[in-house]
């Protein structure tokens, strides 16, 4: 029996390795295995090689505002004069120079409306009225012709206001249409279901460019002789058709997540189809669909840049037009970096918002 008993003294164990402090952090996160150590060293070496020249170009040997392009070309570093020189053209396009406060206010109004809509405390019926009022103000500002504002043709619109208007108006018109399409796809009436499915799958199966082509070359043929839409409106219609199909699929996901008991409960209360949808099903389904809807918004916002193909000057279009100025050829890095940052800020904040909303909504479900 005593054989099983250890009698000698056990040597002291080594103290546990540090688990706090920078050294422990390095060991746990960068050098935990031999291949990770190797990779860390390799990547650190690459970064050391890549970052200084990049910073040098961006900041240290960049030419300050006001340096003429010829000097920039010789110096090598980034030429931020391009941005300061072309800023108003890139942002507002060919809008009359003295009136460019109007598109600026438009940008502010649209961003304010979007920010307000992001806060759940403002999700009240009057928010819709704010949108109607805000968009009316945007129309008045951009077109003018009333209140002492000079009239500006919409062929002169361009830059960021055009990008924002295409997205915001496109999404707000497509949203109700997409709800109808999603309901149609889930409908028990075969004719309506078949038509909704055909529309959604047809639009989702073709690239947006082909829809824009359709808008620019086929819409004029569709209309009675003498009636004509301008190019901007045709592009807007194509965007609405496109967005409605994609948003309908996001909403369908929400509709499918609603348990059958909810439909039956609505029936048991004696509500008719539209009452049941409006009061019981859609409020729940739309709440579930918000994160995928915001993802649709993001890709839609990025897709507005395609209008350049049918000859409209959105933010990307104006940047490209600014680059075609012979005096400023070749500064594409500065131009694309500048508008890339603008696009990125919009899209990244939308995606962060969508993640936050997803967390909030999940919390709601858990409770």
């Amino acid at each position, binding site marked *: 029996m005593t054989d099983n008993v250890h009698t000698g003294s056990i040597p002291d164990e080594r103290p546990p390795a540090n688990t706090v402090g920078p050294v422990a952090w390095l060991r746990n996160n*960068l050098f*935990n*295995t031999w291949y*990770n150590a190797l*990779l*860390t060293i390799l*990547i*650190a070496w690459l970064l050391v090689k890549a970052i200084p020249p990049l910073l040098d170009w961006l900041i240290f040997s960049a030419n300050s505002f006001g340096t003429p392009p010829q000097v920039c070309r010789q110096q090598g570093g980034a030429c931020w004069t391009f941005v300061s020189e072309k800023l108003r053209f890139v942002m507002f396009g060919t809008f009359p120079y003295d009136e460019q406060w109007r598109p600026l206010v438009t940008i502010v109004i649209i961003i304010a409306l979007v920010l307000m809509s992001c806060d759940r405390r403002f999700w009240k019926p009057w928010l819709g009225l704010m949108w109607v009022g805000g968009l009316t103000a945007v129309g008045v500002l951009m077109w003018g012709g009333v209140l002492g504002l000079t009239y500006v043709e919409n062929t002169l619109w361009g830059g960021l206001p055009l990008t924002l208007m295409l997205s915001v108006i496109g999404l707000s018109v497509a949203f109700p249409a997409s709800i109808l399409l999603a*309901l149609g796809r*889930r*409908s*028990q*009436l075969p*004719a*309506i279901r078949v*038509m909704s499915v055909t529309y959604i799958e*047809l639009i989702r*199966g*073709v*690239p*947006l*460019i*082909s829809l824009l*082509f*359709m808008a620019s*070359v*086929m819409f*004029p*043929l*569709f*209309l*009675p*002789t003498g009636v004509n839409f301008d190019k901007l409106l045709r592009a807007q219609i194509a965007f609405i058709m496109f967005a409605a199909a994609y948003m309908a699929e996001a909403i369908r996901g929400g509709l499918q997540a609603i348990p059958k008991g909810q*439909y*039956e409960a*609505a*029936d048991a209360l004696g*509500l*008719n*189809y539209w009452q*049941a949808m409006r009061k019981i099903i859609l409020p729940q389904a739309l709440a579930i669909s918000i994160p995928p809807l915001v993802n649709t918004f993001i890709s839609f916002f*990025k*897709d507005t*840049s*395609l209008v*350049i*193909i049918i000859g409209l000057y959105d933010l*990307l279009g104006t940047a*490209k037009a600014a680059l075609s100025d012979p005096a400023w050829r*070749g500064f*594409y*890095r500065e131009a*694309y970096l500048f*508008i*890339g940052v603008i*696009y*990125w800020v919009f*899209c*990244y904040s939308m*995606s962060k918002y969508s993640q936050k909303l997803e967390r909030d909504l999940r919390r709601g479900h858990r409770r």
Partner: protein
Amino acid sequence: MASETRDTARPSAPGGVSFSLSDPTVRAVFYQILVVGIVVAVGWFLIHNTLDNLSKRSIATGFGFLEREASFGIGESLIDYHPRDSYGRAFLVGVLNTLKVSIIGVVLATVLGTLIGVARLSSNWLIAKLASGYVEIVRNIPPLLQLFFWYALVSESMPPVRQALNPIPGVFLSQRGLFVPVPSADPVWGQMGFALAIAVIVVIFLRRWAKTRQERTGQPFPIGSATLGLLIGLPLIAYIAGGAPTALDVPKLQGFNFVGGVVVTPEFFAILVGLVVYTAAFIAEVVRSGILAVNWGQTEASRALGLDSGRTLRLVVLPQALRVIVPPLTSQYLNLTKNSSLALAIGYPDLVSIANTTLNQTGQAIEGVAMIMGTYLVISLGISIFMNWYNKRIALVER
């Protein structure tokens, strides 16, 4: 939706048939006829206007123009094409170019996306942060902007043809693209292809035999190395037996451009890199979520059964992760294919670009747009069918 099925037990009005709108069946039929009627009326209105407009502008409808001479040149083509060829052949060139960039793009984007998705889950802080930085930056910038950037990078930052960079002997990099030497034509390449085909057939039978043998006797067969050996070995034998030709078709500067070798044009480079970089960011997220979806207990259970880490990954984790990955991956493939239409903006002759030239030259707007849409629908459908088949193959088989 359920309200239509309500009240079905209500007795119909005395005297037989009732046409009251409170009868759900009548109402359903009525609404459907109403909606179909509206759609047909709008459609008829549009078609009527279109025919009216077409006859006023005296544009002939139909696809007869496809037979006519195209008389425009195309920068790059997989088949022989000459401006004297028909519009139909030009369109075929466009379709092949679209397929070329889509197929290569899908393969490369899958590889890059998987690497980045795995890297984002790495225990190495630096790698994980770099990968997530890549995803967050690339996903949030419009693909068209990225394409313009890549295209400008090649066409404006590369030296002109006469001062072409020559990093490796025979390889030239200039504004006109990347020129790479290729082995000169020789019958041995055909024989190697034949050998490869034989190797594939042998491998299929060998795998079947190895599987039945393992099921019968429990003896595993080293199928992985056998497959690799056959696929590389047989073509290699054919190559050596054919005299192992080493002659290269090296690009040479002639006049204003290089002749010979294979060229990667700036347009193709820009559209390919743009699509791959953009789509890889999305595929990385798909892969990451797929791997995260497999419970850690699965890995532990597999290790407890005595499978090594390679087999754990191959036999336990991957099959389960793929079930989550494949459906969203399919839609990314579809997106890449549809985004390849952005090629139009940088001048790569894809099908949209060629259809656009065609419809501008002929005025056949409706046919042109219909051909673009039809082709994309067919391609989309093809990818969907293939991926659904693959998805069914890897789906969980439940008792």
